[in-house]
């Protein structure tokens, strides 16, 4: 019960923080699925609060709940549900975003090297067509991209280093967004009517520093995300149009600090910011700074 109270207090406290976030279609946090947290406990429950500031004066608050079950020494299955609250000149819109299911298989360690592979799926709870007062909202206000995505990834752990490589592929598009720049009083967002998004590829390098008593861990990391094609939308004249400059590279810097309260409970603070961004980000993943607070309970 103590743990539950602590989690709820953390939720409320973080609800009133103001910070920002990186460009993440889901792939950003995929590296966590690779991490082997413990050999003692089989279950992990997490509450994560992330705050961000996007383009067009949009503040985004994301709340996630995660549960991971370790079935064997090698295999674990993780699930996550996200809730997004966006606030800006269009108003405030809060909705559940996506559910994730991610399987992770770790091969046996050999010569200080350990490989793992990951297979995951993202299910959207929305069609990315939320409105306020019958006014269609840009993607920045949508809780989900509206795509059913496949994740494929691999990780190499070598001593204190981790190297993640992953792809996020939209397999089925259910994006029904109906925002038109031409019909809007705002000029801050591009048209994303019936938006179709391309895949992402990710490469991340993480270095882990531990204090001698293992109470504190620091994980500076660099995250390269390449958007593998130009996104498209249906214009006002019912023709599909390519969004020039929506493909390309995003480079994020991320620093994670973890405090292990005891063997079961830990708190994690994550700060990230993009150094390189795509010319156009119609998907609304425009956060210029991320501040995340995570509470983990193992049992």
């Amino acid at each position, binding site marked *: 019960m103590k743990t539950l109270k602590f989690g*709820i207090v953390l939720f409320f406290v973080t609800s009133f923080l103001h910070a920002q976030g990186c460009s993440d279609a889901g792939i950003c946090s995929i590296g966590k699925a690779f991490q082997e947290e413990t050999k003692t406990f089989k279950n992990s429950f997490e509450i994560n609060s992330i705050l961000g500031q996007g383009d067009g004066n949009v503040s985004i608050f994301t709340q996630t709940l995660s549960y991971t079950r370790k079935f064997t020494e090698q295999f674990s299955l993780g699930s996550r549900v996200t809730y997004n609250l966006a606030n800006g000149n269009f108003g405030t819109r809060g909705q559940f975003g996506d559910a994730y299911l991610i399987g992770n298989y770790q091969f046996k360690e050999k010569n200080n090297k350990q490989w793992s592979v990951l297979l995951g799926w993202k299910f959207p709870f929305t069609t990315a*067509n939320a409105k306020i*007062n019958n006014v269609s909202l840009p993607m920045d206000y949508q809780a989900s991209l509206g795509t059913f995505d496949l994740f494929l990834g691999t990780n190499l752990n070598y001593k204190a280093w981790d190297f993640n490589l992953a792809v996020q592929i939209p397999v089925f598009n259910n994006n029904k967004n109906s925002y038109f720049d031409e019909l809007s009083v705002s000029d801050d967002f591009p048209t994303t009517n019936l938006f179709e998004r391309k895949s992402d590829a990710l490469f991340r390098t993480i270095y882990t520093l531990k204090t001698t008593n293992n109470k504190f861990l620091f994980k500076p990391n660099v995250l390269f995300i390449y958007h593998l094609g130009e996104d498209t939308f249906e214009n006002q004249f*019912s023709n599909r149009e390519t969004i020039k400059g929506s493909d390309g590279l995003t480079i994020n810097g991320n620093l994670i600090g973890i405090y292990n309260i005891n063997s079961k409970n830990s708190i994690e603070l994550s700060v990230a910011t993009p150094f390189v961004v795509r010319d156009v980000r119609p998907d609304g993943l425009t956060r210029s700074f991320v501040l995340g607070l995570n509470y983990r309970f193992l049992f």
Partner: protein
Amino acid sequence: MKKLFFILSILVLFSCEEEGILTKNVGQVPVNEELAVLKYSGTFETTSGISGEGKTKIFLEGNQYKLILEDYSIENGPDLKVYLSKTNSPDDFVNLGNLNPAAVYLIPTSVNMTEYPFVLIHCQQYNHLFAIAQLVQN
């Protein structure tokens, strides 16, 4: 498990929708009755399973065509749009925006009105046609 449902319930309480400066009292560009000339009009016929009735009128004001809906009572649906269409099905059309019976829709100036003899009410999200009005020149 109870704990999980409790926390999820808290999250649901945070679900919200609140107007902002761009969605509150959304401004309309009215039809200027002294300057506007009625160019086209039509009466909606609903598709199978859809009830209600309504009319549409298109005015020319300067070089700007404006579309309005009149006596509109066709049943509501999710994500309804107003299309100016080349045919009586939503294949080649101009999307004028979300359905709002009180709205004045501005037709893009590049549109050649003679090529678009239909106004459609169409649910974009589920691709379901609600009503068709064939335009008659006045």
